[in-house]
C-alpha cells in the first residue's frame, strides 16, 4: 500500500443523537481508495449508526462528509449509491423468489418501461471481467447458498457503480471456506482501487485482510491506525475500554449442588447452520453464571434449547439433577426453571390481557390458584396485588391492560412472575435492556437476592459491564462454543474481550 492513496471518504465531526442518547459523537474518519479499513467496536459502539449515515439511511445532526474532496449529503440510500457508496448488509436485500439476474435488474431503470435484463446481463459480464465474480443469472436466489447470495449482493452493488463497499459482519453467515474466498475478493477489490470498509468482531479476520483500523467506543473514535503497527491485544483493550461501572461489593457466592448442567449441546440455527457446537455449561445453586459474547454467538439458540422450543441435534440438559427427556416449556418450568426472555413484547407479555393475568400467567394454571381446572379468582387477585406492590410495578391496578404499562413496569411484572414461582434456576436474558437506572438497579438487586437465597441464575447479556457486575463466574461464548469459563474475581474486560473476539482456530 502506498502511504497516501488519496482520500476517498472523509468524515469530519459527525454527530448523531437519538433523543438524549448520542450514538455518534464528533467522529472523524478517513477512508482511502485502495485500502481495506476495519471498523471495530462492541455492540452499541455506534458502528451501525455511522455506516447508516454514510449510506444515506440517517442524516447526521452535525458534521460534514466529503467524497473525493467534494462535500456531499445523502438524503436517501439511492443518492449514496449513485455517488458510489454501497453496503453489503448482514441480512441480504435480495428477493428469494426471483432469479439472480432479476435481482440485478431491480435497480431503478432509466426509463420506467425499459427492460433492464439485457443491461443487467451486460453489467454483470463487465463486473465478471473486472473482478472475476461470476453469478448464475438464471438460478433462483432461493436455491443459492449463503456465500453465493453474498456474492450476488456484491455484484449488485458493483454493477450499480459502487466504489466504496461496506461489509457489515460479512463472515457471520459464512463457512470458513467461503470466508477465505471473500477475504481474497476484498483484497482484490482494494487492489483495483476500490475502498472497502469491514465491520467485524473477529480480530483474526481483521488482521487477515485489513490495512487500517478504527475502533469506536461509546459512540466516539477510540483510536485509529495501521494494522501493521498494532496487536490484537491493543485493539481489544481499545474496544472494551475501562470498566464504567465499578464492581459492586457483595457477599461471596456459596455455591451448592448443580442447578443446570448442559453437556455436549449441539443446536442448529433456523438456517441449518450450527449455532451451538458441543457446548458444556454448569450453573450451581447459589451462584450467578454470566454468559458473555457478542450478539449472535448462539445465545438465543441456547435459551430456546433449554426452554424446549428448539430441537437439539445432540447433548443433554439437566435441571436440578434431573435430565429433561421430553423437552417442552412445561417440563422446563415443572423442573423449577424460570425465564426472563430478551424479547419481551413477542414472548413474555400478553398486551391484551391485564397486568394481574400477566403476573399470574404461570401460577394461575396450577394449585394453589387453580384446582381441577377452576381458578380461585380471589386468591389470584390477592397474589397479583401483593406482587405488584412487592416488585414496585407502577400501574393503576391489577386490571390495567399490560400494553398500557411502560416498558420498565412490564419488565418488573415479568420479573415478578418469574421470580415468584420460587424457581431453582432463573435464566435472565438482557434483563435490563431498555430500562432506566432505577429499574436496572432494581432488577440487579432482585437477581442478587435470588442468588443469596440459594437460587441459581444464568445471566446472558451482550453488555460486558452487566456480566462483570453481576456474575460469580463468567462463561464466554463465541461462534457457538464456550471459549472459557473464568472466575469473576480474575476476569478482566480485556481478557473476556479477547475470548469474545477469538476466531475459530483459537484453542
Amino acid at each position, binding site marked *: 500500500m502506498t502511504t497516501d492513496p488519496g482520500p476517498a471518504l472523509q468524515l469530519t465531526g459527525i454527530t448523531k443523537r*437519538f*433523543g438524549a442518547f448520542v450514538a455518534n459523537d464528533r467522529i472523524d474518519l478517513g477512508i482511502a481508495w485502495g485500502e481495506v479499513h476495519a471498523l471495530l467496536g462492541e455492540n452499541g459502539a455506534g458502528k451501525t449508526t455511522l455506516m447508516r449515515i454514510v449510506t444515506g439511511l440517517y442524516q447526521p445532526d452535525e458534521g460534514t462528509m466529503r467524497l473525493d474532496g467534494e462535500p456531499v449529503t445523502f438524503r436517501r440510500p439511492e443518492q449514496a449509491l449513485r455517488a458510489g457508496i454501497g453496503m453489503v448488509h448482514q441480512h441480504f436485500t435480495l428477493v428469494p423468489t426471483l432469479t439472480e439476474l432479476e435481482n440485478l435488474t431491480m435497480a431503478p431503470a432509466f426509463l420506467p418501461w425499459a427492460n433492464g435484463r439485457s443491461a443487467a446481463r451486460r453489467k454483470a459480464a463487465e463486473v465478471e471481467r473486472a473482478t472475476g465474480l461470476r453469478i448464475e443469472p438464471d438460478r433462483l436466489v432461493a436455491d443459492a447458498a449463503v456465500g453465493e447470495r453474498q456474492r450476488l449482493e456484491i455484484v449488485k452493488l458493483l454493477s450499480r457503480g459502487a466504489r466504496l463497499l461496506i461489509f457489515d459482519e460479512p463472515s457471520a453467515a459464512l463457512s470458513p471456506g467461503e470466508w477465505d474466498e471473500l477475504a481474497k475478493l476484498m483484497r482484490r477489490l482494494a487492489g483495483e482501487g476500490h475502498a472497502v470498509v469491514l465491520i467485524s468482531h473477529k480480530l483474526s479476520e481483521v488482521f487477515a485482510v485489513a490495512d487500517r483500523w478504527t475502533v469506536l467506543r461509546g459512540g466516539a473514535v477510540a483510536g485509529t491506525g495501521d494494522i501493521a503497527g498494532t496487536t490484537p491485544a491493543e485493539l481489544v483493550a481499545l474496544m472494551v475500554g475501562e470498566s464504567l461501572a465499578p464492581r459492586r461489593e457483595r457477599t461471596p457466592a456459596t455455591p451448592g449442588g448443580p442447578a443446570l448442567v448442559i453437556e455436549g449441546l449441539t443446536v442448529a440455527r433456523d438456517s441449518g447452520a450450527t449455532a451451538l457446537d458441543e457446548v458444556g455449561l454448569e450453573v450451581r445453586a447459589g451462584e450467578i453464571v454470566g454468559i458473555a459474547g457478542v450478539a449472535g454467538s448462539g445465545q438465543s439458540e441456547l435459551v430456546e434449547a433449554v*426452554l424446549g*422450543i428448539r430441537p437439539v441435534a445432540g447433548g443433554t440438559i439437566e435441571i436440578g439433577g434431573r435430565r429433561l427427556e421430553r423437552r*417442552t*416449556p*412445561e417440563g*422446563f*418450568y415443572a423442573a423449577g426453571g424460570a*425465564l426472563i*426472555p430478551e424479547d419481551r413484547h*413477542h*414472548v*413474555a*407479555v*400478553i*398486551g*391484551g*390481557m391485564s397486568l394481574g*393475568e400477566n403476573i399470574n*400467567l*404461570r401460577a*394461575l*394454571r396450577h394449585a394453589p390458584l*387453580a384446582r381441577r*381446572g*377452576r*381458578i380461585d*379468582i380471589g386468591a389470584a387477585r390477592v397474589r397479583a396485588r401483593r406482587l405488584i406492590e412487592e416488585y414496585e410495578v407502577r400501574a393503576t391496578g391489577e386490571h390495567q391492560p399490560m400494553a398500557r404499562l411502560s416498558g420498565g413496569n412490564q419488565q418488573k411484572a415479568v420479573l415478578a412472575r418469574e421470580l415468584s414461582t420460587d424457581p431453582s434456576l432463573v435464566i435472565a436474558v438482557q434483563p435490563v435492556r431498555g430500562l432506566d437506572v432505577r429499574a436496572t438497579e432494581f432488577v440487579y438487586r432482585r437477581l442478587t437476592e435470588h442468588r443469596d437465597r440459594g437460587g441459581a441464575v444464568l445471566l446472558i447479556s451482550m453488555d460486558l459491564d452487566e456480566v462483570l457486575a453481576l456474575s460469580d463466574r463468567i462463561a464466554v461464548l463465541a461462534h457457538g462454543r464456550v471459549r472459557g469459563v473464568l472466575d469473576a474475581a480474575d476476569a478482566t474486560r480485556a481478557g473476556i474481550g479477547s475470548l469474545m473476539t477469538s476466531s475459530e482456530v483459537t484453542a
Partner: protein
Amino acid sequence: MTAAAGLIRRDRGMPAWVGRVVTQLGVAAAALVVAALLLLVIGVSPVDAASAFWSGTFGSPTNAGTTLTQAVPLFLVALGWIVADKAGRMHVGFPGQVVTGGCAAAAVGLHSGGLPGVVAVVLCALAGIAGGALWAGIVAWLWASRGVLEIVSSLLLNLVALQTLAWLVRGPLQGSLDRQPQSANFPASALWPAVESVPGRTLSYDVILLPLLAAGLIWVFARTTFGFELRASGGNLEAARWSGINPVRQGVTAIVISGGLAGLAGAALLFAGSAPWLSEGFEAGIGFNGIAVALLARNSPVGAILTAIVFSSLNVGGTSLQALLDVPSSLASVLQGAVIVLVLVAAVLAHRRRRAAPIKMKELVA
C-alpha cells in the same frame, strides 16, 4: 412531554364503555335512518312500517316466540365465533358447520321415531354438535399439522358442505312424497319441545340456551384454567408457548368447540324451527350473519344475546312488512347488510380512536 401528557389525559377523559355504548347507539340510529329512507323511496310510510314491524316481531306472544326462537341459532354461531376469536383463530366455516351439524342431526332424527322424546331430542342435539365439530376438526387438523390458514380451509369447506347437503337431500336423505329435494318430516317425538301456553307453540324451550350458554362461556373464560390458557394463546401465541401453554392444542380445541356450537345451531334450525325437515336452503345465511351478531356485540357473550335478537327480529319483521305492506322481503336483507356495513365502520372508528394516542406517543419518543 407536555404534549404526551395531554394525549394521555384525553385518552382517559371518558370510560371506555361509554364510548362503546355511544358507538352502538349510533349504529342503531344510522340503521334506522337508512331503513326510513329506503321505505320512503319505495313509497311506504315509515310510521306504518314501524307499527307493522313491531306487531310482526313482538306484537303478539306468537310472533315474539318466533323472534326469540330464531335468535337461538344466530346466537350459537356468534358464540362459536367468540370462542375461536378469543383463541386467536379466525375461521369462517360456520355455514359449513351449521350444514354438517344439521345433516348429522337430521340423519339421527329421521331414525329416532321409536325413541322416547327426551332421548331423541338429546341424541339429535349431540349429533348436531358432533357433525359441526367434526367438520371444524378438519380445519383444526389442517391448521395444526400443515399450517393451512384456518380462514382459507374453512371457507372452502363451506362449499363442500353445501354440495354434500344438495346431494343428501336428493339422494340418501330424500324423503318427501313429491320428490322435492328435501327429507321426510322428522317424527314429532324428535322435535324440540315448545312452550305450550304460547299460541302456535312458536317459543321453543331452546331459548334458555341464550342466558345459560352466555353465562357458561363467561364463566369458562374467567374462572377456568382452560379458558385462561385459551385467551392467553389468542392474546399472544408466542408468549403463551414460552410460558408453558400449548397454543396449538388450545387453538384446535377452540376451533372444534366453535364448530360444535355451529353444529348445534344447525340442529336448532331444523328441530326448533317451523319447517321440520332437511332442505337445501335450511342454513339461510345463519353462518355468516352469526359472525355479524358477534361483531356487533363486540365479542361479548351477553351482548350477543341482544344482537342475535335484533338480527332475528329483522328477519321476522321483514316477513311481516311483506305480508302487511307489500314491502319486498329483500328490504330486510338490505337492512341487515346496512347494519353489517355500519358495524364495520363503527369498529374502524373505534379502532382509530384507540390507536390515536399510542402512535403519537411513540413518535414523540422516537
